[in-house]
Every structure is written in structure tokens, then in C-alpha cells.
């Protein structure tokens, strides 16, 4: 934790920390405190009077059918994105880890989508799946299946899930590959000598040894699907049609920025904050314990 050889200087360390702390206080702690305070207050429609309402905003939020709907959508959306992005990332990593020709070229060709912004990814998928001008959107319609993500909620959800996962596969690929490469070959060879087949070697040896990476990625992907996918939803569907693709984070934005419901939006923010705190705490707890068996 600390070291032996240390500079003794009374003021310098505070000066060095000052810029970081100033930004942290002004733009992180102060607004976060405000969010918590707002979540306990209610303003009248004209913004003239503010009353302290304890947890009423929260009670209001969790009883709101629109909120429960957004929570349900977020659950489906997140599980789908996490499963799709992590599953494909793992499959590609396991394959690229094999001693095959051109493995280096494949790696380069598989990591670049990391750098594509979620909203840009959304525009690419929109161009392909647009019902009248998109190549695949038109093909689906011509095949006799009515496809229009602007009218059909399920199709809209499928489209945002695809666009959001597409971009995230690279990240998982990079981490799974690094995880695989850190597993000692001797362990896997030993399993092979003991007569374990390819499938058995993977599920009984490699996969358990990979569990710290898997767990880390699970947390990162969940947070990604909750928050970073805002851009995908905002540029593709605006939460629609109806409220079919309205996730929790999108609802915080709409209620706060568009409808100016400060108390309600802040209460929703605080609920999301609790989610992030839980995820981060879990992550650190498990990383310390090193999740393999």
C-alpha cells in the first residue's frame, strides 16, 4: 500500500491533488448531492414553492406503470445485450486463441469496432434495417414478413439490441483473449493427457479458470447496457414506438430534460445510483476473492 522512500513536503501533495479534487467536488459530489436532495423535494408547477416530501417521489416512481415498464424493458434489453455481446466475444476469443494461420490479422479485424461510438453504430444498423431503403429491411419485407421498427415495438427492441451488442463484442473479445492467454498451457495439456476431450477441456478447465474475466466483463457489460446505450436508443428510436424501447436511463433523461419533472427524475437517478454502487461494490468484493473454484 504505502512505500518506504517518501518525499517529505508539507504543501506540495495538496497542490498536486487540487485540480482533480476541485473538478471532483464541483462536477461530481455537488451535483450528486443535489440529485439526492432533489429526490426528497417536490416543486409546485410554477416552481415557486418547494416542499420536503421524504420518500414520496420514490414511492411515486416505483408505483408508476411507465417506470415499471421501463424497468422491464431495461431487464430484457440488458440481458440480451450482455448475453449476445459476451457470448460472441467468448466464441471469437476461444477461436482466435487457437494456433491458426493469420491469427494476428483476425485480431486486428476484430478489435476496431471498440472505437465506434454507440450512436454511429446505430446509424449503420438503421441504414441496413430501414424498412424502405435498408437492404435487409427491404429484403425482409419482400419475403412477406412485415418489418417496420417505427411501428412494431418488438422489432424496434431487436434493432437496438443488435446495434448495442455489435459495438460491444470487441471489448469482450479483447478481455477474453487476454484471459485465455494468461491460462497456463500446462493445465490444459494435463487435462488432455487425462483424456478430456475438447469440449470437456473447455467447460471443466478453461471456463472456470476464466471466471475472474467473465465476472469482470459481466459487470462492465451490465453498466454499458444500462448507461452507454443511451446514444443508440436516442438516435434510433427515441424510446419508441410508444414506449417499447424506453429504458431506465432514457426515462431519466426524458422526465428530467423534456418534462422537467425534477423530483421524479432525481428519484430515478438515485435508484440508478444505488445500482451502480452495488455493481461496483460487488466487483471489488469478487475481484479480491478471485472468482475461480
Amino acid at each position: 500500500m504505502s512505500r518506504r522512500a517518501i518525499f517529505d513536503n508539507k504543501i506540495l501533495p495538496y497542490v498536486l491533488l487540487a485540480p482533480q479534487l476541485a473538478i471532483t467536488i464541483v462536477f461530481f459530489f455537488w451535483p450528486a448531492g443535489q440529485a439526492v436532495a432533489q429526490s426528497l423535494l417536490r416543486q409546485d408547477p410554477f416552481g415557486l414553492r418547494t416542499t420536503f416530501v421524504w420518500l414520496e417521489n420514490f414511492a411515486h416512481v416505483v408505483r408508476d406503470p411507465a417506470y415499471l415498464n421501463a424497468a422491464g424493458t431495461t431487464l430484457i434489453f440488458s440481458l440480451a445485450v450482455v448475453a449476445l455481446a459476451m457470448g460472441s466475444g467468448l466464441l471469437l476469443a476461444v477461436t482466435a486463441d487457437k494456433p491458426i494461420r493469420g491469427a494476428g490479422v483476425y485480431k486486428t479485424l476484430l478489435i476496431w469496432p471498440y472505437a465506434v461510438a454507440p450512436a454511429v453504430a446505430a446509424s449503420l444498423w438503421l441504414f441496413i434495417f430501414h424498412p424502405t431503403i435498408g437492404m435487409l429491411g427491404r429484403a425482409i419485407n419482400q419475403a412477406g414478413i412485415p418489418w417496420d421498427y417505427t411501428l412494431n415495438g418488438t422489432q424496434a427492441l431487436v434493432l437496438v439490441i443488435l446495434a448495442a451488442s455489435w459495438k460491444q463484442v470487441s471489448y469482450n473479445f479483447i478481455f477474453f483473449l487476454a484471459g485465455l492467454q494468461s491460462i497456463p498451457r500446462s493445465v490444459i495439456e494435463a487435462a488432455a493427457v487425462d483424456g478430456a476431450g475438447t469440449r470437456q477441456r473447455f467447460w471443466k478447465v478453461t471456463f472456470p479458470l476464466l471466471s475472474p474475466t467473465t465476472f469482470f466483463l459481466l459487470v462492465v457489460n451490465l453498466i454499458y447496457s444500462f448507461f452507454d446505450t443511451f446514444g443508440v436508443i436516442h438516435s434510433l428510436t427515441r424510446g419508441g414506438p410508444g414506449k417499447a424501447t424506453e429504458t431506465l436511463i432514457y426515462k431519466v433523461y426524458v422526465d428530467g430534460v423534456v418534462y422537467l419533472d425534477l423530483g421524479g427524475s432525481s428519484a430515478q437517478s438515485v435508484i440508478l445510483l444505488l445500482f451502480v454502487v452495488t455493481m461496483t461494490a460487488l466487483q471489488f468484493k469478487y475481484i479480491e476473492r478471485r472468482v475461480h473454484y
Partner: protein
Amino acid sequence: MATSAGGSANWTAHLILILGVFVFVFPVYMAVIGSTHDLGTIGRGEMSLRPGPHASENYTQAWVTGRGERAQGGVGVRRMMLNSLVMGLVIATGKISISILSAFAVAFFAFRLRMFFFWMIFITLMLPVEVRIIPTYKVISDLGMINTFTGLTVPLIASATATLIFRQFFLTVPDELVDAAKIDGAGPMRFFWNILVPLSTSTIAALFVILFVYGWNQYLWPLLITSSHEMNTIVIGITKMIGVGDAQTDWNLIMATAMLAMLPPVAVVIIMQRWFVKGLTETEK
């Protein structure tokens, strides 16, 4: 491992990887094609799988005006890219600079409240922009930073991750090095500039790639902080050009813009691939 598994196993491996690459490349290929046809061809659904003849006019139009038949009132890609570039560069260099200084303080000095400050920085990991949208917006507007580069960049410059990474690296610097510097009469700042910063180059390079991409790709923040077209970043600009997204939208210009929006961050990742991959996997855990 036994490499005798050649033959069919290798075939499936190549097949899976090629399929993966195809799924990644196909949407981008379609965007390239879309950016070379005219709006009429795309709007009628007649776009082929081969490049059309309108590449130069589409890219010029997007680059200079950003305006088409529908996308009115926008601003040229050159302006939006400049905004994104400023955002990416300022955020990356800003985060690296203030984090390396804080990590230096935490790792090499003994002072009161050291751990308290360290935890203060650390805990910001749990406060993403998304959970404090409205109050943060209010702070920015009270400070008069709406529609400014300061508002776009400075609030995002605090970085728990970068601080943790530098601190972790600094703890591996041998005590003897500090002792030797002290004996030679070097003060803390001299030690920092002449020894610590040069030792940290590869960490800095890796962080630069990650943070530049982070800054360039920001979405919710610029959406909140900027309202004027002049201040749009290119990622926000694309969404504004799409609008309601019907067949008559200027798809040719949007696809040209999407290509230009992807180019810088993707280029940085590919060119600095080695540092980036090593940095990402070694640091984020």
C-alpha cells in the same frame, strides 16, 4: 497443446472468425456504398452492393455544409469534427495530466487525509454522468459554461480510473530509485519530470488511446451541454441529421458523415493497437 488437431478443426476456426469479421465489416461496407450513391437512388431502394459515382460530391457536401434536402440548418462536418477533436484531445490530455499528478501525490508523499482524498477520487467511479443529469446541467449553466468548450471538456476531466492506474504503476517503482534521486539532490518535481514521467510513457500511450476514444464518442454530455449547431460534435450531428429517419432523409450525407465520424478513433485504435490492447487489459482490472 497438441497441434495435431489441424484439418477440420482449423476450417471451423477460420469459418467462425471470418463470419465474425464479416458481421463487423458488413455495416461499414454498406455505409461506404451508401456514401457513394445519390439520394434518389437510395430513397427508391435501388442502391446496389457496388460503389456509385457520387462519392466526391457527397463527401464534399457533408464536409463543407452538412446540408442536404432535409438536413437543413446543420453545420459542416469539418466544424463538427473540429469540435470532436478538441473534445477528444482535451479530455485525454486533461485526464492524463491531472491523474498523473494526483497519483504522484498519493503514492510518493505522506500527508494528512491522504487516504480520504484517495477514496474521494475513487468513489467518482460510482457517479457516472447519467445518474446526475439535471443537477450537473444546472451547475454548468450557473457557471455560464453552456455551449462552450470548457463546459464540454473540463467536467469530464476528473478520472478515478486513470489515477488508479498511475498509482498502481507508481507503487512498482523501486524505493532505491527514489533514494538515489534524493541523494543526488533531486526534489520531488525534478524526480517527477526526469524519472517518473519517462518511466510512464507506455502507460500514458495506452491511456491516451482509451481516453481519446472515450472523449470523441461522448453522447449524453454534449447533447446536454450544447444547443447551438456550431458546437455539435460529429456523433451528435449524425443523430440530428437522421431526425425522424424516413426514406427522404439525406442518407448519402449521413453515411459520409458516419464514415468520417468513425475514422479518427478507429485509426487511433488500429495504429496504436499493441499499446491499446495491453493497456486496456492490464489496467481496467
